[in-house]
């Protein structure tokens, strides 16, 4: 068995693209070897990458495919052979199969006797196959942004290919791609090793050879080295910690071949700038890690990850250079902060007329007006429900919310929009409630983020997003498939998260300002409200399943509960839906409850079949007549259910879902007995209708929390 190594050397690949490309190359090579039956079972592909290379190493590669015996069947024997002599058909078949006529055999088939031939197909060598197939696999790697570089534009790839290494054990496979022929020479670190080629004798040497040329090709090894070096460098400051930042660790891992870490500092005076600004400059603009003291407060230090290993003198130079850059950046930020204070947020409101929100929907000034209408309506609704809202602060926050888009600081650090507005509002004595609401308006930006901490901030965030979503749907810009250019799904996800995790007592329908009848439009797609409704329902489902991690059957069950005789409207109350999903998840494991779920599924099936056979009209409500209950088991279920229904109803009203569900589970003995003993679809029409009425009664009495028939037994 042989080892196979393949490396493609490139000019610096964008950090964000490396991980996926490394995986894809490994997968493609592995699948190629598997497809071509060149791989021993149980093998795995090891993959490596640095900014200048992607590599894959596979052990257990066969040097050649096994020879394959093939059995061919030709014409019928008595057509091919007349009197034992081969005719033209036999000659033709032998030629096609590549065997002598004398080697043709008689084979028995279900259709009779036929001419057969056995041939051996010689297995091809791994070298042959790889040389032929690898260029196509490399060319097929997906890159978010490609370029061409050679004259005549023969290929597109992420960056120009500089070299390739392809070895089956010690033999070079001269794979050709992008004008480069693979050999055994790779290259080490640009500076620390220089441009001398590094010869790889055999695949197993790869990592070691590169390491001696100052390249750590294993991404995880680099990541751990960086983390350790960050810890180590931070120790120079008493009690300090570096601020964990997984995405930044990932980025710098993909920006380096031989990483090390340097600690730098900045003057105390810059700590007067808001922490948000300092951290953004360090993280987003300089890829530095922030350092905090033992109390979690930002300390005047930073950590930078280098792609080199400097001696003490060089370390001093590099540290000095980085400190200089950071100081200039902080100076800029301070300059913008000072300039921005010359025009207050209040005086910037009219400037919003010059900032386009969307070319059909107008400016941010127009958007502010739309946001105000909705914020006002929401404040009224919420107050009616007894929630305290500082309405004046809310409307002031709405008024000023977008004005930071005109500030120099936000033009420079766009990712700080909202936060800058909040900080300026505070500095300009707009009051804490206003400042907080503005500051948090774009939260949650992702599903990992927290929601705004204040009611005013939550209402501003809701109003802003609802205005955007409705207006965009209004001009036909709803998301389709993978296309969502205005990030409306993200906006709606944030709406759902705020409703689910805040104390704002609004349903989705109330939030949108719809009449309750709109809920009947679910599943339709013919008007705007219906489209929006389906869109929002999808987002609630997404939140329950993907953000909260509820099982899909639990999600289906709680979203299809019965509310005042209607199905599919209960999800509208997001917080309540979450609570039901939570409690339902807890009881689903109990044996009694599983039995109830099965019984409910059975009941639902019976009712559906009855409706299909025309024994029941669609939506027909039946009444149970007690006098027609003939079996003890029927009476038992009816009495138990009648007694339990008000109790469960009361618990449901109190949102004591777990208690309610546990009560429902106590129905099990009666329900089990009923289905054991009683046949519903009997010939006697009166009896049958009464029994249908009975199961309908039970289903409807106990489906207000969830549609248990959705629960999958498990």
């Amino acid at each position, binding site marked *: 068995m042989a080892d196979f190594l393949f490396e493609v050397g490139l000019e610096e690949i964008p950090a964000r693209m490396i991980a996926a490309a490394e995986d894809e190359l490994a997968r493609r090579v592995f699948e190629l070897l598997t497809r071509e039956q060149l791989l021993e079972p149980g093998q795995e592909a090891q993959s490596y990458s640095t900014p200048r290379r992607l590599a894959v190493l596979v052990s257990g590669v066969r040097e050649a495919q096994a020879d394959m015996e093939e059995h061919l069947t030709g014409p019928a024997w008595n057509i091919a052979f007349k009197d034992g002599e081969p005719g033209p058909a036999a000659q033709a078949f032998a030629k096609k199969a590549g065997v002598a006529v004398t080697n043709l055999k008689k084979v028995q088939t279900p259709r009779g006797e036929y001419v057969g031939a056995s041939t051996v197909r010689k297995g091809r060598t791994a070298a042959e196959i790889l040389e032929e197939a690898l260029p196509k696999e490399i060319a097929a790697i997906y890159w978010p942004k490609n370029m061409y570089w050679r004259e005549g534009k023969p290929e597109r790839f992420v960056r120009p290919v500089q070299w390739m290494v392809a070895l089956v054990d010690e033999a070079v496979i001269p794979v050709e791609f992008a004008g480069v022929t693979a050999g055994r020479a790779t290259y080490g670190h640009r500076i620390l090793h220089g441009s001398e080629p590094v010869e790889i004798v055999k695949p197993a040497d790869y990592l070691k050879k590169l390491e001696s040329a100052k390249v750590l090709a294993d991404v995880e090894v680099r990541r751990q080295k960086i983390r350790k070096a960050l810890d180590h460098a931070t120790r120079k400051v008493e009690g300090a910690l570096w601020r964990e930042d997984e995405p930044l660790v990932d980025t710098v891992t993909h920006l380096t071949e031989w990483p090390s870490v340097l600690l730098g500092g900045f003057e105390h005076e810059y700590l007067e700038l808001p922490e948000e600004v300092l951290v953004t400059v360090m993280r987003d603009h300089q890829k530095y890690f922030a350092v905090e003291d033992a109390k979690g407060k930002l300390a005047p230090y930073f950590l930078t990850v280098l792609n080199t290993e400097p001696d003490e003198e060089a370390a001093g130079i590099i540290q000095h*250079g980085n400190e200089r850059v950071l100081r200039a950046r902080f100076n800029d930020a301070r300059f913008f902060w000072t300039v921005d204070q010359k025009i207050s947020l209040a005086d910037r409101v009219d400037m919003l007329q010059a900032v386009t929100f969307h070319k059909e929907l107008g400016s941010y000034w127009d958007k502010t007006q739309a946001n105000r209408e909705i914020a006002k309506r929401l404040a009224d609704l919420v107050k009616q429900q007894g929630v305290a809202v500082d309405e004046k602060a809310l409307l002031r926050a709405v008024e000023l919310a977008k004005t930071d888009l005109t500030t120099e600081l936000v033009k420079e650090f766009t990712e700080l929009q909202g936060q800058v507005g909040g900080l300026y509002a505070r500095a300009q004595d707009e009051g804490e409630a206003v400042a907080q609401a503005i500051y948090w308006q774009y939260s949650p930006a992702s599903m990992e983020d927290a929601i705004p901490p204040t009611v005013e901030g939550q209402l501003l965030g809701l109003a802003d997003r609802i205005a955007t979503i409705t207006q965009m749907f209004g001009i036909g810009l709803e998301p389709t498939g993978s296309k969502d250019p205005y990030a409306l799904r993200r906006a709606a996800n944030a709406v759902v998260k705020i409703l689910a995790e805040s104390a704002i007592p609004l349903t989705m329908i109330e939030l949108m300002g719809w009449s309750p009848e709109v809920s009947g439009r679910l599943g339709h797609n013919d008007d705007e409200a219906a489209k929006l409704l389906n869109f929002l329902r999808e987002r609630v489902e997404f939140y329950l399943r993907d953000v909260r991690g509820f099982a899909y059957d639990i999600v289906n069950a709680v979203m299809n509960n019965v509310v005042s005789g209607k199905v599919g409207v209960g999800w509208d109350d997001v917080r309540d839906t979450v609570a039901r999903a939570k409690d339902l998840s807890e009881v689903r494991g109990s044996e009694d409850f599983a039995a109830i779920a099965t019984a409910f599924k059975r009941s639902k099936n019976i009712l559906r079949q009855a409706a299909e056979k025309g024994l029941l009209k669609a939506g027909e409500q039946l009444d149970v007549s007690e006098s027609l209950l003939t079996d003890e088991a029927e009476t038992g279920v009816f009495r138990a259910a009648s007694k339990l229904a008000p109790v469960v109803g009361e618990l449901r009203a109190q949102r004591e879902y777990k208690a309610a569900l546990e009560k429902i589970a106590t129905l099990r003995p009666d329900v089990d007995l009923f289905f054991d003993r009683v046949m519903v679809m009997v010939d006697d029409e009166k009896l049958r209708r009464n029994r249908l009425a009975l199961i309908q009664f039970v289903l409807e009495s106990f489906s207000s929390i969830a549609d248990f028939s959705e629960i999958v037994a498990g």
Partner: protein
Amino acid sequence: MASALKNQISKQPLTFQEVLFRLQSYWAERGCVLQQPYDIEVGAGTMSPDTFLRVLGPEPINIAYAQPSRRPADGRYGENPNRLYKHLQLQVILKPPPADIQDLYLASLEAIGIDLREHDIKFEEDNWEWPVGGAWGVGWQVMLDGLEITQFTYFQQCGGMDLDPISGEITYGLERLTAFLQDVDSIYEIVWARDPRTGREVTYGEIRLQEELQLSVYNFEAADVSKLWEHLRMYESECQALLASFHEVFSKKAEKEAERHEKKHEHVVHGDGPVPAAEDLQQQLRRFPVLGAYELCLKCSHLFNLLDARGAISVTERVAVMARIRAMVVGVAKAYRQQSVGLTA
């Protein structure tokens, strides 16, 4: 560490003009034609015809030039130590880019006294785009100890046309680079020149501060908005008229060529009929001032930037004016190509 720094500084880093000399010599030694700065206002070295037009078409070219680049909105009255209304770029175009272009670039840093073993250098993804010129490319920003010192781009499209061959573009920010080498915190403290006889130093501030201040005042306060609009309209209409007449000439030539081809065919077949001379049209095409039209585009672009700095362009106008300038710039690029193709055909 302090002594190490002192060592560095005592090496006496290059002056601003020496950095420029060294880089120019470096690239000249590697086959670049040294061009002088273009004498019309541009926002970046890319907009000089020596880049924008020369990257079009198949003819190889290696060229380098310093280019003062004006960005009116970036003016800070000379008060901000890191921002300038007008900064100096060194632009290098290598078409087609040699396979070792990155190594060539790194060696150019050594040429200005940067010992790469004492620094941290990274190539970080940064793609370049000039929508008004229908131009974009992929590449990197080159980071030296956390400072962006160079924009490195493989041009892919220009004037809305795919490039073949592509060009490699290396743009050094000379003020940043020199401030780094000299370890000064303000651009204005950069030593521009040092008299070798007396050791007397002239700073960047002495040469340029007044200009930064006065042109910031002009750009933000004094420029007459209605006159700027008037200038813009004048340049624009002249450029559009030139482009229109180019298309007239060019389509006439194409027509004639088709006609001549037919006549030749007839001549061969029937042995009679005169062949029209195309020399006069060829001459007309050669003389046509496409480059003049491009200069008018550059004027428009700069006036647009001035109006923008004056805050005189509303959102709706912005989109519309940018689209008109784009149409002119892309139109010139296409005309330039048609002209070259027409003349070599």
